[in-house]
């Protein structure tokens, strides 16, 4: 396991992903007085997923700010605060609610720095749960990272484990660019792992090679890293699994280097297929390493429909079997 930035010898604590997020928020609030955690239901309640639990008690209502119920209000106010030197960390309760703030997101948050010729900047972070699997209500399971990635001027980060989450969130908050930090709700309490106890930041420009392999490159992020891992374990294939970690801007070099070696590429994502990030990854691989490809790039994805009702969502989301089928299809491919 190659996880640049995490020092394996430090003291660790066993944490799940939501606890790791909480720890990073606590560290950054303590470290930098410009950090303000903002959102509705993040104060005394500690967030509907309890990601901000205890922060209000420790830091008070001027650092951990409960706001009125408006995503657009939140993002737009945070942009104004960030323009004035604050470092807001905004919780959007679910990614599906960010659409209400899309004007401020595209035209201000991601744009102020460019528009002002670098005179103003927006060092803010949006944290938001996303993804399927916990079977809640409509628009609570969205994987619409494409809307974010197609927008220039913003970084999009997506951790897949607790230790990753802690270091990537710290890095996102410290970063002077606007960042959207996507927390997969199914991973919040899925498992614990030893997480270094001291604060640390992971790089925002390096994908993580989860396991090395020679037969096929598998690209995934968020919960799909684990689904892909399971498929690889089931198959006993010599696959290289890469956790993208940062979806914008992409660490294209790590991806291309891997596919140059393996000659095969499978992308796994929860997003719908049409213009899911898999489309870009497939296009990039074909553009730049076409002559190494032993099979067409395969996208293993959800379908091009709205996230379905609870009873059918398991058939919508990629599972280990669908990933296995995808990997088999590229391994079996003959010109």
């Amino acid at each position: 396991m190659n996880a640049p930035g995490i020092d394996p010898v430090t003291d660790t604590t066993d944490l799940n992903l939501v606890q790791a997020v909480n720890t990073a928020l606590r560290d950054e609030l303590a470290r930098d007085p410009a950090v303000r955690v903002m959102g509705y239901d993040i104060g005394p309640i500690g967030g509907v997923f309890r990601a901000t639990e205890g922060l209000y008690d420790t830091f008070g209502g001027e650092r951990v700010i409960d706001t009125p119920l408006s995503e657009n209000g939140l993002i737009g106010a945070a942009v104004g605060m960030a323009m004035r030197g604050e470092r807001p960390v905004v919780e959007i309760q679910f990614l599906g609610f960010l659409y209400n703030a899309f004007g401020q997101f595209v035209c201000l948050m991601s744009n102020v720095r460019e528009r002002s010729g670098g005179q103003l900047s927006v060092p803010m972070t949006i944290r938001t749960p996303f993804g399927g699997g916990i079977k809640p209500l409509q628009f609570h399971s969205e994987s619409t990272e494409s809307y974010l990635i197609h927008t220039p001027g913003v970084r999009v980060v997506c951790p897949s484990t607790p230790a990753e989450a802690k270091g990537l969130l710290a890095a996102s908050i410290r970063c002077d660019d606007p960042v959207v930090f996507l927390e997969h709700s199914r991973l919040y309490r899925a498992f614990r792992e030893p997480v270094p106890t001291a604060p640390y930041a992971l790089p925002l420009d390096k994908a993580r090679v989860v396991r090395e392999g020679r037969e096929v490159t598998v690209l995934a992020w968020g919960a799909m890293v684990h689904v892909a891992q399971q498929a690889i374990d089931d198959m006993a294939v010599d696959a290289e699994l890469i956790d993208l970690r940062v979806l914008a801007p992409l660490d294209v070099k790590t991806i291309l280097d891997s596919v140059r070696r393996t000659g095969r590429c499978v992308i796994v994502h929860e997003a719908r297929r049409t213009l899911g990030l898999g489309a870009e990854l497939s296009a990039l691989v074909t553009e730049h390493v076409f002559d190494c490809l032993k099979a067409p790039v395969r996208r293993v994805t959800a379908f091009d429909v709205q996230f379905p009702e609870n009873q059918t969502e398991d058939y919508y989301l990629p599972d280990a079997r669908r990933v296995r089928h995808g990997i088999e299809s590229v391994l079996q491919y003959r010109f």
Partner: protein
Amino acid sequence: MGQHKWAEQAPDETFFRIQAPDGTLLGQPPDLDDATLLRMYRTLVLTRAYETHTIRMQRRGELSVTAQSTYEEAVGLGAAAALRDGDWCFPSYRQFAAHLYWGVPMDRTLAILRGGAPETVAEHLPLDTPPGVTFTPYGVILGTNVLNAAGSAMADKLNGRDIVTLAFTGEGSTSEGDFHDALNFAAVFKAPLVVVVHNNQWAISTPAHRQHAAPTFAHKALAHGLPGERVDGNDVLAMYQKTREAVDRARAGEGPTLIEAVTYRVVDHNTSDSAEVYRDQALAEHWKQFDPRPRFEAYLADRGLYSDTLRQQYEAECLAEVQAAAARALPLPRSDAMTMFDSQLFGDPGWHLRLQQRELAAELNDANPYTAIDPETLE
């Protein structure tokens, strides 16, 4: 559990009331016949039976997350009773009483709460007689339904139809831009719209005094030039009366009205919430005394309509109805995976969806979806 909780403020009680909390008549009750009053009362009993049962079902894992309106039913009940056949309602998730007053079938609602596709539900639990008032699915994205309701009312206005549209929203949701768009569009076009802001003082953990700085939610109307009323939301008669006046004005072409219904969320936000984490539950306890049910019973008693026997009869009937609905909903087959492709586009859904349908069908047949299909066979 956090040390710090929200400091609460008891809501301002300057509002329109017909009955005092103890049932005393303070003003002229609306002109309602016995049958309607009894239908309203039965709906109140049914709503409580329904909610008690759904909470239990949810705890047993039979339903996904659901909300309650217990102690707040007068809002939806009084307002919905002011509608008539042919009207439209764009509800929030807390208006079970409105649904039940108009006979929206519980079995279908429960089947949807079990995570079934609407197509499956419609197939297995067909509607014989649709309710007199059409209810849209509630708007998951807060505030949006109020704006769609404004559009619905504009459509009626443009066509000269004397239909009224009623929308419900929580006080927290008034902070969304959609709410202001709705009031503005409805007011500019004098659309026959009535918006009820169900002010139960909380939006999950956010108290009303952190939601806004205006003295009341009825004040929102002043920004948009429409009448704003503030009503005791635990007084069924007052809710009926003020909504009815607004509905009549709307039907007469006089435009929209905003009604703030003042109540209190005694219960948790929904089955995923624990209110004691973020608030002192004392005020919730206090508000139990404003339960709309005994108050309404007192009025029925004044009218000679109420008896313990009637209550017991209704309770027994309603429990049986709820149980029967659950018994119809529970055995519904799980939705077929392929239903996710239903109700997308009219006609041909396009090449990619035809391919993906075949992929899923292949998976369901234990085939490899990526090798089993020859894309050249797709038109």
